[in-house]
Every structure is written in structure tokens, then in C-alpha cells.
């Protein structure tokens, strides 16, 4: 009887945690799967190779973006200024920052050309909810470039909240800029600034095509 009860309980507990326990890929596996998939797709797509930026961005939208937590990224990049924004402003900030990051990411990806990738084994405990997944881009005549993904465990799977390239954090690099702009022209000023930056990049991209 006691056994049956504990079995039932553990079955119930299993049901409760299963979406988290079984629906989630470990973060290092996730990074490897997504990276290899995206690299393959780019290598086999003639239009993207020929410089079709819009197509590359839609590929990133579909394959990469779901694994990023842009709200965390924006909040971290804003630092103390994040608290000064109201809910509507926060939503616009996240949207604008996301657009800018995706564009930058597309630009960085299009510079990639068949370098070897070295996926490092994950050094973390199974209970960790905040890990760094390391990938290295190997090249001749230069030291490997380290790409570190800072990832947090959420109910919807592991999400990237910062990317460090060669020790430079994307999120931290924006922090001083954002704080300077907020100091000089407020949250609205920052939103306007990001918006006009995105518009000018879009215009430049359209011109190139």
C-alpha cells in the first residue's frame, strides 16, 4: 500500500515536471543543434550567400530568435535605467533592441566562411539554472575566437540572455551608451535613437540590394 502510494505520488510528480524535464534540450546540445542547422542552411542557400540580407534575417527569425530572451537582454543592457521605463516603453525598447541585434547578428553571420567550430563540453551541474555554453571558431594564424552564450533556464526551455565574443559582452557593450542617452534625453530619447538607427540600417540595406 505504502509502495503503491509512493509510486502514484512519484508518477504525479513526474507528470508535473515532465514538460520541464523532457521537453528541454540541455543548453549545450541546443546551441550545437541550432548552430549547425543555421550554418548548414546558410551554406546551402544561394540567395543568402549572394548577400540576400532579408532572407538571412528571416532565417534568423525562425531558427535563432526563439532561443533568445530579449527582455532579459534589454533589461541587462539598460542596467538601472530599466526601472525608469514604464511597461509600454519597455515593450518598445525590447522591440527596437531586438531589431538592432538581429541585424548585427545577420551581419556577423554573413562574415562566417567555413571555419571549424569547436563545441566545448558544458561545465555545469545538472541543477544549475544559469550556464555558459562555449563555442570556439578555429582559424589559421590566429588564436581561436571564443563565443560564449550565457543561458538561463526558463519554463520554455533554455534561453540566451547574453553573447560574449572574444570576451566582449554584447549586453555590457551597450550599457554605457544606453545610460548616456537616457541621462541626456530620457527613455523616450533612447527609443527614438534606437528607432532612427534601425531605420537608417534598413535604408542602407535596401539601397545595397
Amino acid at each position, binding site marked *: 500500500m505504502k509502495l503503491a502510494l509512493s509510486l502514484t505520488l512519484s508518477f504525479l510528480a513526474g507528470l508535473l515536471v515532465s514538460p520541464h524535464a523532457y521537453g528541454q534540450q540541455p543548453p549545450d546540445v541546443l546551441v550545437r543543434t541550432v548552430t549547425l542547422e543555421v550554418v548548414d542552411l546558410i551554406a546551402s542557400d544561394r540567395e543568402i550567400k549572394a548577400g540576400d540580407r532579408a532572407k538571412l534575417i528571416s532565417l534568423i527569425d525562425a531558427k535563432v530568435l526563439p532561443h533568445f530572451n530579449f527582455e532579459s537582454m534589454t533589461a*541587462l543592457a539598460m*542596467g*538601472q535605467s530599466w526601472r525608469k521605463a514604464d511597461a509600454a516603453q519597455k515593450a518598445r525598447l525590447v522591440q527596437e533592441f531586438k531589431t*538592432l541585434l538581429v*541585424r*548585427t547578428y545577420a*551581419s*556577423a553571420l554573413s*562574415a562566417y566562411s567555413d571555419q571549424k567550430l569547436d563545441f566545448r563540453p558544458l561545465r555545469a551541474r545538472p541543477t544549475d539554472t544559469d550556464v555558459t555554453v562555449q563555442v570556439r571558431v*578555429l582559424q*589559421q*594564424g*590566429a*588564436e*581561436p575566437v*571564443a563565443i560564449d552564450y550565457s543561458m538561463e533556464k526558463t519554463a520554455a526551455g533554455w534561453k540566451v540572455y547574453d553573447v*560574449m565574443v*572574444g*570576451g*566582449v*559582452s554584447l*549586453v*555590457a*557593450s*551597450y*550599457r*554605457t*551608451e544606453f545610460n*548616456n*542617452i537616457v*541621462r541626456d534625453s530620457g527613455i523616450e530619447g533612447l527609443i527614438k*535613437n*534606437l528607432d532612427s*538607427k534601425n531605420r537608417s*540600417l534598413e535604408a542602407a540595406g535596401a539601397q545595397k540590394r
Partner: protein
Amino acid sequence: MKRLLLSLVFLVTGCATTGEGDPRDPFEGLNRGVYRFNETFDNIVARPAATAYRDFVPRGVRDRVRNFFSNLSDPLIAINNLLQGKVNEALDDGWRFILNTTVGLAGIHDVATDLGLEKHNEDFGQTFGRWGADPGPYLVLPILGSSTLRDGIGLAADWYADPLGEIRPINLRNTVVVVRGVQIRADLLEAGRLLEEAALDKYVFQRDAYLQRRRSLVYDGRPPRERFD
């Protein structure tokens, strides 16, 4: 002495700061001036030269030029690893130099990397950092770009120990140094375009990225985690 230095700082920056400058960048006014000069130089001289080099020299040749200069830098990297007490890394660098100079035909082939001996990134600025020197104020050097007081002194030491400095006649040395400069700038073309696209204020973005990069290099890619608030 400290007061003299401080008043010098205020003298230099007094005209340009708003009073809320970054504490890591006390010379921001002066630095931004040099930065503007560097941008002009880059627009007119360095970037066009690097772009032409990339567009007209075949990739195979460029890779070999990069390998050649990279090989010449390995002995100094070995010395810096040794000065930092990293004996195994120093031995790797020594092996790299020997293998690439012989089997790699004077360094134009990086056979050591293929054999698993990875290239390291070390210089005197990093060695001073490992010994405990703080970066000190951020500096933008003419033509050379982002640096700090520590890294600037390190750079002078790097140059003093640079084997290219031994090349004679002087004309040949200067030519070789210019070729290396063009090659380095060509490798940075993509990064430059990214900076152009990503940054809202290029000066600030580049400064923050540089300071993070150097901190990471001093700790060989494993800096103690900084707290995000």
C-alpha cells in the same frame, strides 16, 4: 605629484567634459579628438588600402602573409607566457615557432595549428596586467587606436622587442611594417562594419568593447564574473 597629474587631467579635459564623464576615461575630450583624427586617417588611407588588399590579393596569398607575420610574433608570445608563469603555453609557442618556421616554410603555413598547437594571444600589456597592474586611464593613440596607460607602455615594450624592427635597410623595414599594418586592418574590415552597424555612439561602444576585451585577455578568457545589477 598626484595633484599635478590631476590638474593636468582637468586642463586637458576641462573644455570637453560635461562633468559626468566615465571614470575609466578621464581624457575623454582629448581621446575623442584623436578618435576623430583616426577616423579621418582610416577613411582616407587605411581602409581604402585594406579594402584594395582584400579585393586584389587572392585569399591564399593573404592567408600566407597573415601566417608569416603571425609566426614572427610567436617567440614574443612565448616570452610573455613565460613571464606570466605559464610554462606549458610558452613551450607550445616555442614548438609552434620551430614547426612553422621549418615545416611551415618560414611560417607561411600554420602547420602547428593543424597539429593541435593553438595560437595564443599575449603581449606585454597583458603581462603587466597579470602582474597586477590596473589598466589605468583609457587612451586613444594616434593611428594605433584604443589603448590604456598600461597597454600603451606594453605596446612600447612590444615594439622594442619586435623582430621586424631588426630588418635593414630601413626602407625595407618600413615597407614590411606597412604591409603588416594593411594586413591587420584588412582582417578588421568586417569588425569595423559591424561596429558601424551596431553602435549608437561608436566611440563609447569601441571603448567599452576594448576594455572588456583586454580584461578578458589578461585572464585568458576566464575573467572573474562581473556583477550585473
